């Protein structure tokens, strides 16, 4: 059932809880309704009301660490090649209050022989130099990533190198850019993976990716999609609107009745009207039509 899907796409999250009297009345109403319907399972409202709250995981606090251990940890940190910028990143990564807490935690880990979740920024920068990242490449990357300055760009690129990847491979070609824009339009219109599966089938495409790109292109050109596919609703038909747009496209391209007769013969269709729809659909999809002569 798609009830959950519809809910997820149509709701806003609550920001405040209802008052107690409202909650009580709601539960009573729910129980009465379910009893009337003969449903024996507890309503979600009642189940939630009885649940115990999950216990919070204790957060790391450097003030909880013994002073001597704290000093050792900081010394280990200083000797590690990690710097303040890394401490900030680690604090975010671990959800800690500040960079100092991160240093202490990280130093403690290093002393115990563990490695940290990511390499230092200095190490990453070095990796860029070691891999011969050119100035021009760095500029290209900076423009695409929006990183601030040459150093930052090299650091970010360095992490790619450390993972064995080519940072330049992350930049899409103009053709790929266009495809991503079309896919954006596809999702923004509310379509999803399931719709892409249907479209790929209708259009005889191999992958949902191709279907999304094609559909996104049609959406951006304000053309209708084929029947059976509309966001949230796999039962809506666009059959009629598709016919209408196709016949329009047929005539707008300068073809006439005689052409339709010819096309019907060529394609083995029953009527010239069928030919108009088929031809118009091809015109809209920018596919070529057979040569009809003068």
């Amino acid at each position, binding site marked *: *059932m*798609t*009830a959950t*899907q*519809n*809910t997820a796409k*149509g*709701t*806003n*999250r*609550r920001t405040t809880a*209802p*008052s107690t009297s*409202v909650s009580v009345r*709601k539960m009573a*109403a*729910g129980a*009465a*309704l*379910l009893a*009337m*319907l*003969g*449903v024996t*399972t507890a*309503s*979600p*409202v009642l189940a939630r009301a009885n649940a115990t709250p999950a216990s919070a995981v204790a957060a790391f606090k450097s003030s909880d660490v013994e002073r001597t251990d704290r000093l050792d940890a900081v010394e280990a940190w200083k000797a590690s090649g990690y710097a303040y910028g890394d401490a900030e990143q680690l604090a975010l990564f671990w959800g800690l209050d500040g960079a100092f807490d991160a240093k202490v935690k990280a130093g403690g880990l290093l002393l115990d022989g563990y490695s940290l979740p990511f390499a230092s920024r200095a190490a990453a920068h070095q990796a860029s130099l070691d891999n011969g990242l050119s100035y021009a490449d760095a500029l290209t990357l900076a423009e695409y990533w929006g990183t601030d300055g040459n150093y930052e760009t090299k650091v970010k690129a360095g992490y790619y190198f450390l993972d064995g990847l080519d940072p330049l491979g992350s930049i899409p070609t103009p053709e790929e850019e266009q495809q991503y824009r079309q896919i954006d339009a596809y999702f923004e*219109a*509310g379509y999803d993976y399931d719709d892409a599966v249907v479209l790929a089938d209708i259009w005889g495409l191999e992958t949902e990716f191709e279907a999304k790109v094609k559909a996104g292109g049609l*959406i951006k050109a*304000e053309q*209708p*999609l084929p*029947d*059976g596919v*509309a*966001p*949230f*609703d*796999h*039962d*809506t*038909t*666009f*059959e*009629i*609107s598709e*016919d*209408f747009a196709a*016949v*329009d496209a047929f*005539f707008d391209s300068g073809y006439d*009745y005689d052409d*339709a007769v010819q096309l019907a013969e060529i394609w083995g269709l*029953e*009527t*010239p*009207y069928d030919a*108009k729809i088929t031809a118009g659909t091809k015109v809209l999809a920018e596919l070529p039509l057979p040569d009809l002569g003068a």
Partner: protein
Amino acid sequence: MHRVGIEVELLAPVGSSRLELARAVATEWDADVRTSWHLDSEPAAHEQIKVFHHMTPAFDVVDQEGRQLLRLVDDITIRHDLDPRRQTAERWSRVVTDDPRFLRMLATKLAPIGASQAEVEAAADSLGLEAAFHDAAAKLTDSSGASVALVAGMPGERERVCEIISPPLGGGRNEWLETVVGLATQLGFTVPQESATHVHYDAAPFRNAEAFQRLVWTFTEHAEALRARFGTNPHCTRLGPLPQAVVDLVERDDYEAMDWATIAKEARAIDGVTKYRDINIMNLVADAPVLDTVEVRTLPGSTSAQTLIDLVAMVDGVVDHVLGQAAQHA
């Protein structure tokens, strides 16, 4: 028992149509069949994609006093069981346009079945339009050449689709269902894949804070339970619980003190309150409702009158719960 309007989506067998059911019912009740247009549209998938509006032949069974006993129309959600390549309803017309105003204008000028080329030309002419004919289709354009509407045939076996629409039914509800659905079964009508049954209740009793609150809770917290109980058709996807924002509205601290006009106004402003939910409250909260009903949309279709009778009775119970509890607090 509440006074209700019932809609059931069924399918005529191959070679037959909803007109056959209209004729059978008319014979049974010594009434007449009148042909008319049914206007509908596909919901806009995206604000930039045009919504297409169309009208197709519909049939009304009307008694000697002119009262409507039954209406049978097309339903665009019914597609799966039809063969789109067949073209069997040769004289049935379908008019397509992107502006419903043109449909309403053309509806007064064109016959739904058997309109000749001359009649289409005359209709176009009377509206200042040009008709260009290519086979069975006529493209109507205005003086600047802009396309206004397409008057075409109706391929794809759409004449088989039969949405049964009842008049308001009170005490005679069971007999009405037994007759109409019974005749449909005799004629070989079946339940199409996307079939649903909708039930309309008078909206007026729901227009108070308490009832509306219970209505919203019923169709959000218990949407799933109701669907399980009704046996909602999983192939119907134009459904869903009401949005969370409506729940938030009825649980606000100041909600009980709000008057109905304010509640309705707030509800209208909520994004996601559309017709295509488990319950259609659009007319309930509307300023000037077109059809003054609340519509429950999650019942499955059936060719068994008894099943439909039982299902509607169940919805009666839900409505009693929503309204009855309010009465206790009043």
